[in-house]
């Protein structure tokens, strides 16, 4: 018998084999259940309804109408005269017309209360890349970023996986509607120090994911003061800024800087994207807006790994620089999201469920803690499994968002039709009734 000599398996890197991509968490497990049995209005009415994906589908018709009426956006005009330059354009500065359109769109969203310089905009293929890129620039492997909980589950992967940077949570709880306090920030900082981790920055999401609420002015002032005090960076992920239900309730960190005469601005960086407000996650459009020249230059160079297709830049430059379109879109989108939010809150209330008072985003933060057997993470996950497998709804458990209080769930409402939302609410109502009876 021949002796089998086993060939040594060729090795992979630590990054490749690490679990930091986090795809084993319940956040993603629920998606699997949905993929295997997706709800469909006609062909699969008993399937799982996806309420774990923060996607905005309520305003597609506005986009379609624009594209229908403006073929030059998708075709470079008759005979395609601008096509050649566009197809060759791979400059990491990005199309000037697109940067200008993005700057102006960001200003419109903030009601003109802050100004943006197109030369400070760095383009990336999505906010995911923007957040990772900033982390590479602001922190070294082994350093730490402070992030208020609950936070978007994707941060664990996006900010830590390839960068080697740690996340230290700033614990927030329902006693004050999960607002960020100076005490909580200080506690997190101390916690990092005690673990010998150098804190390089604080990253906030405003409006918050998963809370669905904007951060108040006073809190923003305190957060900026904290960053100045500790001489660290402040990253404000404002990806949902255009998804606030009323224009006046969102206050951007840019406005705070404006009132302070841009003092201490060099530590502030804003992340934005068109994936949520414009409902175009497939286009892969993200931006870093930094008040720090060194960060702008470095981010631009690093963006070579994540450039936006020049075709897409051209299309969006046309669309967003059309003031008539952009103003109408922002206004209409807000109204529709607000209406959806009211619908889901009313529906949940009828079922006896309370939510955190929200004013933005594509989701609500639902409180099911009264239903838990015990106020533990295990109880929460058990309840989540029941909702996934019996009620057939994929919602995101608070523990996947690192929420320190068990029993909270994020429920998305903008990625489906109104009819589907009604059905989801009906299922919840039935479930709650059954629970009451037992």
């Amino acid at each position, binding site marked *: 018998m021949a002796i089998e000599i086993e060939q040594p398996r060729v090795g992979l890197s630590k990054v490749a084999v690490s679990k930091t991509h986090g795809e084993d968490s319940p956040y993603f497990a629920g998606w699997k259940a949905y993929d295997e049995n997706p709800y469909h209005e006609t062909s699969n009415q008993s399937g799982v309804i996806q309420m774990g994906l923060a996607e905005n589908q309520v305003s597609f018709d506005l*986009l379609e109408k624009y594209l229908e009426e403006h073929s030059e956006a998708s*075709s470079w005009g008759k005979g395609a005269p601008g096509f050649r330059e566009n*197809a060759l354009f791979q400059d990491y500065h990005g199309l000037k017309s697109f940067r200008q359109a993005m700057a102006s769109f960001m200003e419109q969203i903030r009601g003109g209360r802050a100004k943006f310089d197109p030369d400070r905009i760095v383009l990336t293929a999505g906010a995911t890349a923007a957040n990772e890129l900033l982390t590479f*620039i602001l922190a070294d492997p082994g350093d730490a970023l402070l992030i208020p909980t609950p936070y978007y589950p994707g941060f664990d992967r996006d900010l830590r996986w390839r960068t080697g940077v740690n996340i230290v949570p700033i614990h927030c709880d329902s006693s004050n509607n999960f607002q960020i306090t100076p005490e909580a920030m200080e506690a997190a900082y101390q916690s990092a120090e005690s673990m010998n981790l150098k804190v390089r920055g604080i990253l906030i999401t405003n409006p918050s994911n998963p809370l669905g609420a904007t951060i108040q002015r006073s809190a923003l002032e305190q957060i900026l003061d904290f960053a100045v005090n500790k001489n660290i960076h402040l990253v404000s992920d404002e990806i949902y800024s255009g998804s606030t239900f009323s224009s006046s309730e969102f206050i951007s960190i840019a406005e705070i800087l404006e009132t302070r005469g*841009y*003092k201490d601005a060099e530590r502030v960086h804003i992340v934005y994207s068109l994936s949520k407000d414009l409902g*175009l996650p497939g286009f*892969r459009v993200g931006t870093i807006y930094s008040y720090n020249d*060194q960060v702008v230059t470095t981010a631009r160079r690093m963006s070579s790994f994540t450039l936006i297709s020049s075709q897409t830049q051209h299309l969006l430059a046309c669309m967003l620089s059309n003031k008539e379109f952009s103003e109408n879109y922002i206004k209409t989108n807000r109204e529709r999201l607000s209406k959806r939010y009211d619908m889901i809150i009313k529906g949940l209330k009828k079922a006896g469920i309370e939510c955190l008072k929200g004013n933005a985003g594509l989701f609500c933060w639902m409180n099911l803690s009264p239903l838990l057997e015990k106020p533990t993470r295990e109880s929460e996950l058990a309840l989540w499994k029941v909702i996934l497998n019996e009620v057939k709804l994929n919602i995101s458990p608070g523990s996947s968002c690192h929420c320190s209080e068990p029993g909270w769930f994020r429920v998305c409402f903008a990625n489906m039709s109104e009819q589907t939302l009604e059905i989801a609410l009906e299922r919840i109502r039935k479930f709650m009734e059954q629970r009451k009876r037992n």
Partner: protein
Amino acid sequence: MRLIVPLQSVVQGRGGLIFGSLIPCALFYFLQLYLKRHRSPKPQSNPPSPTTSSPKLAEMTRTSSRSNLFSRSIGQVRISSRAISIAKPNESPYYIGLDKASEDPYDRLSNPDGVIQLGLSENRLCFDLIEKWMSENLGHSITGRDNGELNINGIATYQPFDGTMELKLAMAGFMSHIMGGAVTFEPSQMVLTAGATPAIETLCFCLADQGNAFLVPTPYYPGFDRDVKFRTGVELIPVHCRSTDNFALSITALDQAFNQTRKHGTKIRGILLSNPANPVGNLLSREMLYAILDFAREKNIHVISDEIFAGSMYGNEEFVSMAEVLDSEGFDKNRVHIVYGLSKDLSLPGFRVGVIYSFNENVLAAARKLTRFSSVSAPTQRLLVSMLSDARFIEEYIKTNKRRLQNMHALFVAGLKGLNIRCADSSAGLYCWADMSKLISSYSEKGELELWDKLLNVGKINVTPGSACHCIEPGWFRCCFTTLAEEDIPVVLERIRKAVENTTDLLNSS
């Protein structure tokens, strides 16, 4: 004088203490008052503009915006060590030349004294074909009218990060076609990325840890220094090739480099190849591919084969892909990864379309997850599915492209020959590798860079010096000819001649 006196009194102890401290304090106080009155006004409520007008060439010593003058923060906020090295002004002639050419670009009519760009391997020879296709087909390709109804849903929403199956299928077909149909590519083994640049970086993240290294034959594409090293912390170890055998790779050299590096305590994780080679333009023979695979198996390392110029052949040699060799022999496929993209063969660098093709399921699984950081934009995916599936167009494009490449290459190389400048033997790529060593003042990198500078600033042509490509022999330059029209060639040759007018060897037959 007046200041000294009180201090003298202090020293001599005659009531000078009061004067000694009072007068300097008073002077200091008045100085403050003067400065306060003449201080510039507080900045307007406008966001600070970047302090340099051309940030690409930014001098990084002055980094603060105006408002920092009034900041009371203790120190400047710090950026990471990774970022600091990237922020430094780029000194490589590769990038400096590109910048200069883009600031003052040559145009036959509107800017005849501008810099002629021969440093960017871009193919402009067949845009007329693509433009024609666009104007005939574009209306329906982006937004995808289903039954006449505009439907953005298909491209707006989240797509699989590693590319749609439709595009993978179309790419697999295209890649197979340009490689002469000798190999079939499986869409399920493909991961699409926003260009070949992130494809290379992603593979490095998957195959090597920080501090590890890849062997890379020289001369190599200057961009590899960025793609491989910037964020991964992985090193590149050059394996030098020489003109005596037309810069062919030798296994002996690979072996030597491997052993040397291991002695220094660095772990080699793989070999990074370009085939067709950039900047030389030669091909790896079938035998050499076998030899490389044997070497890789012996050392248990990976092989990355960047085949981005596979469809830019002008010579008569046959291109053999790593995939083709693997198909035919019993090699361990798990260590081979191919990189491709549409920037060169289809002239669409702006659209950002790259491919990682691997036979290793674990690498594919990791790479797929990493594409969330660099995905192909959905409207572009849809456009390309349409274009790549148009068999008649692709057939015509490939044929015409090859013919025009052959033509330009022949004209350009003959032109250089007329100036007594020989080029290395090459069969592919958008450039030729020219030997200008006889024209440099001293046979050294310094001499080479002096010539490069003369060509750029006197001759007004941008070419890439061999040192930027880590070539061990000075005097070689990469000249891309696919950004030119035929009429431009005599202009280029004349400029070279003018730039080196004082050098004796030029125009004398050897």
